[in-house]
């Protein structure tokens, strides 16, 4: 089954087929079908408790669905062998909502950890790569030797992102990349996500509530409600949807403002891929 899928050019990076999840009697998802294409920025939105995080955890092997099949990078996740799972872990990067940085290690050690674990590079080379990744995410070099507890929320997210891309993954998962950030840092994340995709061809899957981020960077957005995927489309198409569960996200002053702002931005600057400055 998986052997031919590996060799052929895979256009879909993640495929979820009829995925259902139950915790005891509580039903989280029923029959979820999702496809994430290569080099796209795919966002999952939904109210609190709609099972977005559970869906993400199922994609990264932290949780098993009750039924259905999930394929990530051509590998089927059910009954995946430990060696295959390890190989998969090296091909993706995950940034957790709270960063998930190891408190016992400095920032630079955190970023170097995946390299130390999975490559045979010299200490010197690992440190150099870590510094480069940290610079890419826009973290100030002074912070490299600090411990995660000494960092601000924004710096922590940047460090976590640097660790997620340490092994040059093909696929990047972001859990609430802008939650708890000030507007300036959040705008930096927008640009960073776009930059990673455009420069390195990464496929990015993110969970977010941030309407600005959704309007600015997401190619396609899946709306999760009542345990089902209500619609998957671009923000523009979704904003015209008649589905009440989708409409919910586009009503209210905050949503309208983000939409207007996006329309304004698109009209004034037909973005000539300006150099990234974070």
């Amino acid at each position, binding site marked *: 089954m998986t052997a031919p899928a590996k060799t052929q050019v895979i256009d879909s990076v993640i495929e979820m087929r009829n995925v259902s999840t139950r915790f005891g009697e509580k039903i989280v998802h029923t029959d979820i079908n999702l496809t994430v294409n290569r080099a796209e920025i795919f966002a999952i939105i939904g109210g609190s408790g709609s099972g977005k995080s559970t869906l993400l955890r199922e994609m990264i092997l932290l949780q098993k669905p009750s039924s259905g099949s999930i394929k990530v990078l051509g590998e089927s996740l059910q009954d995946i062998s430990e060696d295959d799972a390890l190989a998969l872990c090296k091909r993706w990067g995950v940034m957790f909502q709270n960063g998930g940085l190891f408190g016992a290690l400095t920032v630079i050690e955190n970023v170097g*950890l995946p390299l130390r674990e999975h490559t045979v590079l010299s200490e010197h080379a690992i440190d150099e790569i870590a510094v480069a990744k940290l610079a890419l995410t826009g973290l100030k070099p002074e912070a490299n030797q600090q411990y995660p507890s000494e960092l601000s929320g924004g710096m922590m997210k940047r460090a976590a992102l640097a660790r997620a891309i340490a092994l040059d993954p093909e696929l990047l998962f972001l859990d609430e990349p802008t939650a708890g950030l000030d507007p300036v840092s959040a705008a930096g994340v927008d640009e960073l996500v776009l930059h990673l995709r455009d420069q390195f061809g990464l496929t990015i899957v993110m969970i977010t509530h941030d309407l600005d981020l959704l309007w600015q960077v997401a190619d396609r957005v899946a709306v999760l409600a009542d345990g089902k995927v209500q619609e998957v489309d671009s923000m523009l198409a979704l904003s015209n949807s008649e589905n009440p569960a989708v409409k919910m996200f586009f009503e209210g002053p905050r949503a309208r403002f983000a939409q207007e702002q996006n329309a304004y931005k698109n009209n004034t600057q037909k973005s000539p891929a300006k150099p990234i400055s974070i």
Partner: protein
Amino acid sequence: MTSLSKPNKLAISATATPNLFERVGISTISLLDQFIEALVFIGETAVALTKSVMQPRRIRWRPILFNIRTAGFNALPIVGLLSFLLGIVVAYQGAGQLRQYGANIFVADLVGLSMLREFAPLMTAIIIAGRSGSAYAAQIGTMSVTEEIDAMRTLGISPQELLVLPKVIALVIVMPLLTVFADALGVFGGMLMAQQQLDVGFVEFLDRFVKAVSPTAFMIGVGKAPVFAVIIAMVGCFQGFRTKGGADSVGRQTTRSVVQSIFLVIVADALFSVAFSILDL
């Protein structure tokens, strides 16, 4: 629609307090769940251990050495002091009885056998459970709250290999050594008391001690220590991994780990006593 039915359900379960039978049932099921989880955890650790033994390159020496220092070397003062005091207490309690029969010299038998066979390993285990077992639960619990355990898994690093095995291995190395240290200071405490209360000099005491206490008694005490070490390390780590939710859960699991590991250590000690009496040791 579902959002409407949810609060109703909650309201019902909040108003109707479960009766005695329901409560017994709920705690029985949660106890069974925990037992099954514990079996899974033991199995996972055993698999990780087998892998490490097959590929010794995978053994993490740095955390092992670190744990040897924090759980072993740093515990020397407290283990030593408490064993010393325990030796004094045992000798003092025995002194009154022995003096009545003029059997003063047997204080060496009393202190030697009780310390070496029972008190030193048990005392060490209880101190380590409170000192290190709780620290393990708190560390791993905090790490799961801050998503560090999840991050570790997604980075392809086995938490069992990085967090559990080094702690188990370190404690298995350290506990017998701490027990020997406790033996020595306990006997020394008894010796001081014997000289004070029973006029048994150090030389006489040691003379009798060598005759009274066989190497078997010493080995029994030291032999229990690795078993206690495994219990303490495994319970601490297991309770740490069971932490779910917020910071308050970390505290709860830490407390639970100490209570459970001391309980299991004493149960294991009782089983040892039964086994040794059957084996005539």
